[in-house]
């Protein structure tokens, strides 16, 4: 299982090791660098370290440590540093840091944790730099440190009427020992955090400047593509027409590559569907595409094997069966598994008696299909590998892990591997599994040239690593007074279980049972925006709507009563949500959507979920027109603590809602004898402009809690809000995704 306890990866803060470098640097080039010219890249990147850099002539630069894939961290992380540094945010330069494990921790996209886990380190980085500048000023002016103040990048000493720009003290400040225990601002004094700042890359985005990995071009670079087996369960046997391909115009080389060695113990993100693929290398993309079409490869059926994994010392084995799988068989396996015993993950009270004594029992089964990620920028990576070093440039989510895998594969120490992160044209989990980086490196090594590997859309969509397929059976027991006295979930995934057994409604029901199972498959899976939660919320929140209806209760009031119970008299001790904060988002969305006054007349669907440390609740308002749902409005309430960049956070919620409506309505990846049934956007339906909601209103709970996730939490509750509204509009409950297919039947 590719799950990850992210906390186990947190090192000591970068700062405790003196990681902050307040350096004077000489050359300032424009710093949100176009990844175009290699010489320029080296000039810009290699000399720099740390979070804060200030030149003697007062150019202030803040490094953004984590990869940026649309979640907005390249704006919001530097905002947090700038807040404590006390500078004018509009005047600083922001630069994407390279992978740099010396100065930064947790440089990755995953789990909506960048701001949550980076909060203290980012603030401390800014505050420490400010403190060092103040100490330098105090020393230079020979005055007590306590008398130094700062305002927007200027140091002041009022008594002597002295002032200096940060730049004037930067060289001296760099000599000051890194202070410990610097004082952080009080939340009420925030001037940058909480005020919307525009995406720092937006001007470049709207004018078509090179920003993405696929835009990388260096002198002498070749284009590489791969050909992978046409079906899951097949593997490479032989290239049949190598000579003919090599003779094609513009083609340089054709050869197979093996991504992971047989004896390699995989870690968290070392996932690939096809361990051996054929590389085609040429001078231009179109020429390589033509050669790829003409390439003839013999494939063979792969054997079953046990994939050994070493998750930070925890060794696991994943059984990969042989065979060419079809979705129809998968469905049968889920039905079969539901009748068999499963792993009990949590049990409270006496579930059997509760169901025996129940006045009413409701039982429903939900299904969710495999899904392809479909990042708009197809998978790609630049590599230049020589005997001395490996230089990699491109979009990826987990550079530190991928670097380790590459180091093992090339037998090259980490110091000789340099990974530069470009903006990601979407990630959504897919770019955590950077097998294509290793492919690019192996290709470059073999052709002895810089290369850029590009996947076609078809390669991207049919190369594996999907959201797992899931099924869940829910049972609820109501007593004669319509109280929920028993709750049972049995859920399974192929090949990962999505169950989070201690989430709501655990803790709110006396008799509770959560169990799970997995089903082996040779299809590879991986994180997909709000992994597992994206299905659990869909099933659970659809089910609770039906339970509330059966109990004759308002769906919001029904959940609030459960949350009240969980707050006042919780069942069990391991409930992983704060019932009070959870209840507040339900109340907020109820109020803002005018639920009480409109629920009788409008077709409203409600749903709420807690994941990634944040709470989200939606009310979705739709109507049916010629059998097609028209979504008039979605009201969304979120508690993610302090909102660092409100307009960007709102954008994330809007996007999550649109994206999830698309997945719920249209998303599916099915297989016929191992062959993915969709391979491009003509047969994998994505939500489009005309299908998006007409309006989305986002409301944040105002509080001073440390910030939590925003990239994912708005997504999971959407499916059920939609399903519950569709039920109101059509009288039809939806148990299977994509809803579009089942609405018609």
């Amino acid at each position, binding site marked *: 299982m590719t799950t990850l306890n992210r906390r186990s990866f947190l090192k000591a803060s970068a700062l405790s090791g003196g990681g902050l470098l307040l350096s004077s640097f000489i050359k300032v080039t424009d710093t949100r660098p176009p990844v*175009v010219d290699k010489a320029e890249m080296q000039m810009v990147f290699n000399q720099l370290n740390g979070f804060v850099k200030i030149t003697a002539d007062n150019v202030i630069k803040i490094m953004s440590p984590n990869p940026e*894939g*649309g*979640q*907005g961290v390249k704006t919001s992380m530097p905002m947090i540093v700038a807040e404590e540094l006390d500078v004018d945010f509009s005047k600083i330069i922001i630069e994407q840091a390279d992978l740099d494990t010396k100065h930064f921790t947790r440089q990755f996209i995953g789990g909506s944790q960048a701001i949550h886990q980076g909060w203290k380190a980012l603030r401390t980085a800014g505050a420490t730099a400010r403190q060092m500048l103040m100490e330098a000023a105090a020393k230079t002016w020979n005055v007590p440190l306590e008398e130094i103040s700062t305002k927007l990048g200027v140091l002041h000493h009022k008594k002597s009427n002295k002032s200096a720009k940060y730049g004037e003290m930067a060289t001296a400040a760099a000599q000051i020992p890194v202070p410990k225990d610097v004082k952080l601002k009080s939340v009420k004094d925030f001037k940058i955090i909480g005020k*919307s700042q*525009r*995406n720092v*890359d*937006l*001007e470049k*985005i*709207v*004018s*078509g*400047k*090179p*920003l*993405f990995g*696929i835009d990388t*071009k260096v002198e002498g670079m070749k284009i590489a593509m791969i050909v992978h087996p046409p079906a899951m369960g097949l593997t490479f046997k032989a290239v049949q027409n190598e000579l003919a391909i090599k003779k094609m*115009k513009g083609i340089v080389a054709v050869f197979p590559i093996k991504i992971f060695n047989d004896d390699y113990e995989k870690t968290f993100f070392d996932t690939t569907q096809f361990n051996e693929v054929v590389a085609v290398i040429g001078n*231009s*993309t*179109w*020429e390589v*595409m*033509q050669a790829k079409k003409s390439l003839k490869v013999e494939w063979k059926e792969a054997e079953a094997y046990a994939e050994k994994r070493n998750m930070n010392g925890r060794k696991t084995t994943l059984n990969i069966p042989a065979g060419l799988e079809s979705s129809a068989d998968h469905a049968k396996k889920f039905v079969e598994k539901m009748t068999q015993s499963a792993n009990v993950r949590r049990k409270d009270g006496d579930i059997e008696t509760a169901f025996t004594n129940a006045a009413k029992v409701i039982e429903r089964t939900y299904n969710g299909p495999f899904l392809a990620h*479909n*990042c*708009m*920028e*197809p998978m790609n990576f630049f590599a230049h590998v020589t005997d001395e070093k490996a230089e990699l440039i491109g979009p990826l989510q987990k550079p530190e892990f991928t670097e380790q895998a590459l180091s093992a594969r090339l037998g090259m120490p980490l110091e000789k591997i340099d990974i530069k992160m470009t*903006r*990601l*044209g*979407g990630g959504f989990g897919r770019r955590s599994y950077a097998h294509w980086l290793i492919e690019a490196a192996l290709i470059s090594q073999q052709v002895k040239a810089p290369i850029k590997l590009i996947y*076609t*859309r078809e390669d991207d969509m049919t190369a594996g690593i999907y959201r797992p397929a899931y099924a869940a059976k829910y049972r609820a027991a109501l007593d004669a007074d319509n109280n929920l006295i028993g709750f049972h979930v049995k859920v399974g995934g192929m090949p990962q279980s999505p169950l989070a057994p201690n989430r709501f409604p655990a803790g709110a029901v006396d008799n509770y049972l959560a169990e799970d199972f997995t089903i082996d498959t040779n299809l590879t899976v991986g994180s997909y925006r709000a992994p597992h939660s994206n299905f659990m919320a869909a099933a659970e929140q659809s089910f609770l709507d039906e339970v509330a209806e059966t109990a004759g209760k308002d769906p919001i009031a029904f959940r609030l009563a459960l949350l009240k119970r969980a707050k006042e008299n919780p069942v069990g001790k391991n409930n992983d949500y704060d019932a009070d904060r959870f209840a507040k988002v339900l109340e907020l969305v109820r109020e803002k959507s005018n639920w009480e006054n409109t629920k009788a007349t409008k077709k409203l669907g409600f749903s709420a979920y807690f994941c990634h440390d944040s709470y989200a609740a939606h009310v979705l308002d739709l109507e049916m027109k010629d059998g097609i749902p028209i979504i008039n409005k979605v009201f969304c309430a979120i508690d993610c603590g302090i909102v660092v960049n409100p*307009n*960007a956070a709102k*954008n*994330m919620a*809007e*996007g999550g809602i*649109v*994206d999830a409506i*698309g997945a719920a309505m249209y998303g599916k990846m099915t297989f016929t004898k191992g062959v993915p049934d969709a391979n*491009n*956007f*003509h047969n994998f339906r*994505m*939500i*489009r*402009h*005309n299908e*998006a*909601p*007409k*309006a989305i209103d986002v409301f944040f709970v105002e509080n001073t809690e440390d910030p939590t996730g925003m990239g994912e939490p708005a997504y999971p509750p959407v499916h059920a809000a939609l399903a519950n509204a569709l039920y109101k509009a059509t009288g039809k409950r939806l148990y299977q995704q994509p809803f579009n297919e089942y609405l018609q039947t």
Partner: protein
Amino acid sequence: MAKYNLKINGKTQQVDVDPSTPMLWVLRDHLNMVGTKFGCGMAQCGACTVHLDGNAVRSCSLPVSVVGKGAITTIEGLSADATHPIQKAWLEHDVAQCGYCQSGQIMSATALLKNNPKPTDADIDAAMSGNICRCGTYLRIKEAIKSVASPLTPNGGKK
């Protein structure tokens, strides 16, 4: 291989490529103009949208050999410094998330407004539904288009 003199963003550029080469790859590989993006290669996602004589076309499915004397406009041709009214509207609405699809979105929107300066919501949907955004920024895109189409900015001020 064949030589083509292409009119791109008001300048004539010569390339020597196979006649079947799509304009997308002529732009990206041969002219180093990477603002036009590769998304699907089959005119399904709109990431590669450019203008051919003022109309939005999908450059991934437009062979260089059929362009002839047609004038091509790419995202780089709107303005180099994000000052075109549509680009400004995108900035004002902080539209993008990952941003990858946005040059295609902007080119579709520009062509729409050129041919229909006051589009209705339905006109916008019809013109823009060939452009996919996986991040889901459709509402902001629509607002940005409407702000250019209407005399008022979203803040209520006159342009």
